[in-house]
């Protein structure tokens, strides 16, 4: 079951929803990059907005995760005079002043996925990534019996939330699991093909590893591709990676992935709209809305989304 810290938020089915806003509102949701990970956020938000009515959603992202491009998007949204912005920053330090500009222009701003703590954003919705890293370390330790060599594949080594996750893993292993050794950390730069290639080479370099972890979006799928190509299953070597993207879930079902540490992005969409509505109505929201992480294994694969 999930061991991450859980949010104290209403689940979608509870009844006490705020009504539709009185006047029509435009909210923009800006992802750090175009990626399927965020699709549950889009679908969740769209369905919820439709249900509430009177909300227009505008979804955007810099296609390759470029900081400047995301800044431009924020600036352009200020020009568009949207009512609210929810943003997952590509670079928290960089985005802070632009978030503040939006707020000065009378736009309500919340962050999600990766926070921008130095800004005046009203609140953050999503995973605390350092904690997610700690959680990941615990999950790895549990599955490998607190002993053995592990290898790790990073995406872009500068993406803040991924760096935090990695830090969390390293810190927890140092602190609690002396017999686990991180044999290698390499980067695939979020390029699917390069990730596969680097992982293969890493495996050759560390043939005695017991478990592999993909930190970012390209990590889990790279593992699946390599396991498949080598005819491995999770009985041979373990792949314990982040996120419940379709590919990873399929990999789990196919026995190519041992466990996933999943974020709960499927509830972010609603939380974002609720928060923005509250803010637009003059209310306040919690500063940190940690939606936590859940360990997903073949046992709870069909039910984990309902867990809290």
């Amino acid at each position, binding site marked *: 079951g999930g061991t991450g810290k859980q949010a104290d938020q209403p689940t979608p089915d509870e009844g006490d929803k705020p009504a539709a806003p009185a006047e029509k509102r435009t909210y923009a949701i800006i992802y750090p990059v*175009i990626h399927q990970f965020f699709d549950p956020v889009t679908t969740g938000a769209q369905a919820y907005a439709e249900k509430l009515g009177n909300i227009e959603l*505008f*979804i*955007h*992202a810099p*296609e*390759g*995760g*470029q*900081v*400047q491009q995301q*800044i*431009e*998007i924020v*600036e*352009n*949204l*200020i*020009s*568009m*005079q949207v009512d609210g912005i929810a943003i997952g920053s590509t*670079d*928290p*330090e*960089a985005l*802070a*002043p632009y978030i503040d500009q939006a707020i000065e222009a009378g736009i309500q701003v919340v962050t999600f996925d990766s926070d921008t703590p*130095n800004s005046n954003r009203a609140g953050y919705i999503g995973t605390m990534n350092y904690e997610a890293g700690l959680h990941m370390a615990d999950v790895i330790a549990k599955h490998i019996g607190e002993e053995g060599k592990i290898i790790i594949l*990073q995406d*872009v*080594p*500068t993406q*803040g939330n991924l*760096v935090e996750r990695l830090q969390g893993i390293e810190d927890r292993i140092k602190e609690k699991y002396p017999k686990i050794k991180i044999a290698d950390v390499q980067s695939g730069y979020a390029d699917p093909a390069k990730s596969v290639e680097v992982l293969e080479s890493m495996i050759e370099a560390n043939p005695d590893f017991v478990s592999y972890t993909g930190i970012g979006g390209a990590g889990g799928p790279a593992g699946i591709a390599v396991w498949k190509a080598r005819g491995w299953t999770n009985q041979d070597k373990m792949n314990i990676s982040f996120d419940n993207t379709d590919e990873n879930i399929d990999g789990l079902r196919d026995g190519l992935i041992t466990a996933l540490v999943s974020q709960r992005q499927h509830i972010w969409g609603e939380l974002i709209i609720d928060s923005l509505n509250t803010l637009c109505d003059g209310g306040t929201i919690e500063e940190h809305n940690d939606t936590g992480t859940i360990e997903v294994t073949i046992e709870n694969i069909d039910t984990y989304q309902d867990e809290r």
Partner: protein
Amino acid sequence: MFAKISNSIKVNRSSEYFRFVIGQKELRLFVLLAAMVAIMAVLKPDTFFTSTNLFNILRQISLITIVAVAQTLVIISGGIDLSVGFNLGLCGIIISYLLDAAFNPALAFFAGISAGLLIGLANGLIITLVKLPPFIVTIGMAYIARGLAFVVTEGFTIRVTNEFVSELANGYVGPIPIMTIIMFVIVVIFSYILNHTPFGMKTKAVGGNIVAAKLSGINTVTHRLKIHVIGGILCGIAGLLMIGRLNAGNPNAGMNYDVDSIAATVVGGTSMNGGEGSILGTLLGSMILGVMRNALVLLKVSMYWQTVVAGAIIIAVCSIDYLTNKNK
């Protein structure tokens, strides 16, 4: 004597044609830009045609335009520089790192811009002395610069709090962003240098026919070195502004600036073959692309389609330019 007359008649015709085209090149781009602005002003009067938004666009294009000026100089001199983006990124990182380590800011700026200079110099030396193609040298150098940025930061972004840097990138003089003023100054300086100084003429000569340039007594090696060094310094300046704009040294900042700066240069009418081109054209090219990006967001084009539309517009703008050019 008759030969004279007949020559002058024919040449006259063909050269007048060309003078018209060249003189009109920037004008044509300007008309295109004006048309785009006009259409957007009609479609989105409230959001596009506001002074905030227009100045926003000007600020958004400032950085890329500065880099594109460097790119334009290199391309006119017969080269290409695919390392501008990560060069800029590395310079920014170095400045942020030194500021963070509480160095004297002036020293930090100096060190960062020197780094840009050195990368430009390294590019230039390998290209001119080992005689490798600029394309591959600058790709290699881009990897090196990007890697060094990773090494310095170990992947973290470095927060930048220096007031001066922040003011440079985010401040205004009246309604005009300081960064935009810096950009205009750079454009004016290099437009002047290119068109009105021996240095500019030599640059075109080196790019137009390097053998002829050499035979005219130009030291083509040092000249190309100078061009790359200037390009490197401009990247350094852009790096400084970038960290101000991002309030952080981010090793990924500058990604795509290579391709974007080339796009601005080519849309601006500079020939990829070297020997001719215009800094003013590059500014206009950069503005056209900036207005396009802004318009795509304001028109709420789906993010999935934006990339498609951007690609199509780049090709279309160049084609329009070519076709109108041909018809005249």
